[in-house]
């Protein structure tokens, strides 16, 4: 009896045609179930050289900045008008004076900086000093050409501040470290970590609504008042230029 042995190349998996069909079918399945991600990725690489470049991005950014500046100046004007109506303290651009830091003593008992503008330029004791980020201190004394600024971190610094969200007033007390303490006048206050601290709009010493810092932590155990630690938004140890707000009433 003769036995017929099937030739190996006669099996289906050795047939190239079947594999081609399987491959095409698999591709179709992937395309179907992938929701065209392959096409999108291919499209990504093909169109990449023709995308809007950095230049266009810059134009957009500039336009957005201009728009924000217009809105800001409009809001400032509104604010000034309303403050005039309410007979509150006013601060205009004319009262701002740019000054550079000529001496910095931020790491000893005396937390001070010295500015290159003095009484000759109209700077007087009590003027607010603002750096990039917000308020950094108050002019302590002036000479003819220079003025000494006591920083908010100085142990003897005390400034009245305001939390806009909770509409709460408090006292910011310097303790020597970079994070002054915020002392609220009552125990149960609605403040949260991350809240902004601004200069009080009712203040007669400081210009209104100047950013000062962000609440870093809250000590609920302290009695009888709530005390919070504030991270200042302006860093005097890294600032070279500041603005002096000359107090004119």
């Amino acid at each position, binding site marked *: 009896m003769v036995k017929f042995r099937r030739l190996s190349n006669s099996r289906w998996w050795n047939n190239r045609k079947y594999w081609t069909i399987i491959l095409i079918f698999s591709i179709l399945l992937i395309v179907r179930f992938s929701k065209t991600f392959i096409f999108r990725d291919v499209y990504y690489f093909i169109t990449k050289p023709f995308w809007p470049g950095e230049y266009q991005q810059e134009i957009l950014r500039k336009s957005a900045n201009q728009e924000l500046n217009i809105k800001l100046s409009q809001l400032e004007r509104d604010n000034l008008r309303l403050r005039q109506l309410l007979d509150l303290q006013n601060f205009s651009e004319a009262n701002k004076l740019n000054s550079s830091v000529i*001496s910095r*003593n931020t790491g000893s008992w*005396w937390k*001070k900086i010295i500015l290159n503008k003095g009484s000759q330029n109209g700077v007087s004791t009590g003027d607010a000093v603002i750096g990039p980020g917000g308020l950094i201190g108050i002019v302590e004394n002036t000479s003819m050409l220079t003025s*000494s600024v006591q920083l908010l971190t100085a*142990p*003897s610094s005390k400034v009245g501040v305001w939390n806009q969200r909770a509409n709460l007033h408090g006292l910011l007390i310097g*303790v020597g470290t970079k994070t002054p303490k915020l002392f609220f006048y009552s125990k149960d206050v609605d403040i949260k970590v991350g809240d902004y601290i601004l200069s009080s709009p009712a203040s007669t010493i400081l210009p209104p609504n100047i950013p000062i810092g962000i609440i870093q932590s809250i000590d609920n155990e302290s009695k009888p008042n709530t005390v919070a630690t504030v991270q200042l938004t302006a860093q005097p140890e890294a600032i070279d230029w500041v603005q002096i707000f000359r107090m004119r009433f």
Partner: protein
Amino acid sequence: MKFDLNQYLSLISFLIIPLVIFWNPSWLSLMGHQAYWPIFWLLPWALIHGPFKSMLLGFLLGFILDSFNADMYTQIPGLMICGFWFGKIESSNKFNNNPIHFGLTAGIGSLICGVIYFCQIVLKLFLGNSPLWVFSYGIQNIFSQVFLTSLLAPVFCKWLYLFFIKEYKLKM
């Protein structure tokens, strides 16, 4: 008459102290803390001129330095005690002019001045019923100041000591 700079070295270096304090070089500070600069001048001066003159100079130095800071605390007592003590250790022959002695003496002097200044701050806060939040910062500040002063004293004090000796010999 020829002007001899060597005769006025102590006066010139004395006038430089406030400028260095204003300058506050960041590369000579530790975590923003500064060395106590007046000690670098007072120590070598006291080693040459004795306790009583140095106490008087400590008063003068403190008086000038207090005028920079418009607060109610004073550096005068610390500097007067240091001036007296620095002069005393020299007159009792307990001081060898080696770097370790300069470093240790300046460090202790800085500690005395720092503690006296800090006590005034604490006392004011205590009397005003204010919380003593400044306490940990004060301790940190004192120790940083002592460390930096001790570290730099062998260089600055020795250097000034040699200048002052030269000036002293010229005047004698």
